[in-house]
């Protein structure tokens, strides 16, 4: 296999995901979009980008909302605990309080929406967070917030209801704001990339699994 072929496995995967000759428009758009974006960011970014956004199983909006709810449970618990465990002071303490409140509101909203759609809100898992100091807390917080942003971004194109999509959008922007603020506390760039990469459900689960007891 030539170097050229090896250089673009993600792109090929991205295009073939939707290999349905009946639906020319869709694969055409994916191909064009991937090629165009590939020209800009390099294929490295684009292959997974297109593929992940389309790869999530079509479990419906209730499943997506319940998945988001699980992540919000995790964040809520994490920040609630952090109020006493993270030894945060001053600006960071205020930030922890603010984020804890936002995440709890996300839990409420997602729970209510699952019910409105006729679904059953998923039960809250038991979580365990392993850290001993402020630095350890911040490291985990950054992971959770960045993962949360990517999880919503990955799920977005799978959402069928316009209203659920708009609501998820209003939450993900807040997650992104949290992520930026936490990253600044960590001495990291608030926006590491020009595009927040999407993650699919499996990748998100893998990221949060170690914290589910």
């Amino acid at each position, binding site marked *: 296999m030539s170097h050229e072929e090896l250089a673009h496995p993600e792109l090929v995967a991205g295009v073939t995901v939707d290999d349905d000759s009946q639906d020319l*428009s869709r694969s055409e758009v994916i191909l064009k979009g991937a090629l165009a974006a590939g020209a800009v960011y390099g294929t490295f970014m684009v292959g997974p980008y297109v593929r992940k956004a389309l790869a999530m199983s079509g479990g419906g909006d209730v499943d997506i909302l319940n998945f988001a709810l699980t992540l919000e449970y995790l964040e809520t618990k994490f920040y609630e605990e952090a109020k006493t465990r993270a030894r945060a002071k001053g600006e960071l303490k205020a930030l922890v309080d*603010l984020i804890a409140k936002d995440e709890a509101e996300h839990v409420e909203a997602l729970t209510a929406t699952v019910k409105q759609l006729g679904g059953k809100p998923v039960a809250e898992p038991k979580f365990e967070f392993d850290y001993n100091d402020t630095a350890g807390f911040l490291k985990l917080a950054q992971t959770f917030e960045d993962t949360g942003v990517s999880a919503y971004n990955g799920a977005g194109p799978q959402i069928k209801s316009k*209203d659920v999509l708009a609501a998820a959008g209003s939450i993900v922007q807040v997650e992104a704001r949290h*992520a930026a603020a936490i990253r600044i506390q960590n001495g990291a760039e608030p926006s590491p990339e020009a595009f*927040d990469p999407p993650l699919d459900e499996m990748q998100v689960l893998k990221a949060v699994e170690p914290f589910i007891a």
Partner: protein
Amino acid sequence: MKDKLKDPVSRRKFMALSGGSAAAAAFLAACGSDDSSSTMATTTGADGMGGGMADGETAQFGKGDLGIVNYALTLEYLEAAFYADVVKSGLFKGAELKAIEKFGREEAEHVEALTQAAKSLGGKPAAEPKVEFPLEDAQAVVELAATVENLGAAAYLGQAANIKSPEVLASALAIHSVEGRHAAALNGMLGVSITPDGAFAKPADAQTVLKSVEPFIVG
């Protein structure tokens, strides 16, 4: 080409099946939110270039997704030019200058991506507007940057649910959250809340956004 873009299994079709308005009600209740945004572009006006009602508030930039992409592109042009001017102004040094340069580079990447997206939709990318910003003192510039970024984030949020192509939506979402990150960082620099709307960010419709940036567009 444009007709083909209308995926038979479109979001709209699903909308009717999935009880969307109930979800909205739940969220609105949870947010304690106020009015929803207007979709009428009365002052900026569709000048006959766009289509009918279906294209809504971004019709002046093109039909459907192309209109949304070109609307976003216009805003990104504005942001990229703003940061480029700020960098040249000499008002910032050190870490602040580095942060501004990075934000500027990211906006420039958004411009490139949206230009490509417009082309991939078979359309003509929006032209770069001529812009001018007041750049007198550092504090005022950071305030303006925060205003622009918060507005940009709200603009993407206002359009997300109108986007039909999953690919365009994925790209818009990837940009939207970065605008949110920028906005939060700048709000933080100013000592104002990183989440000014609370736990749920509010969208802005195109008319509101365009009116807000109008003072900076000189041609």
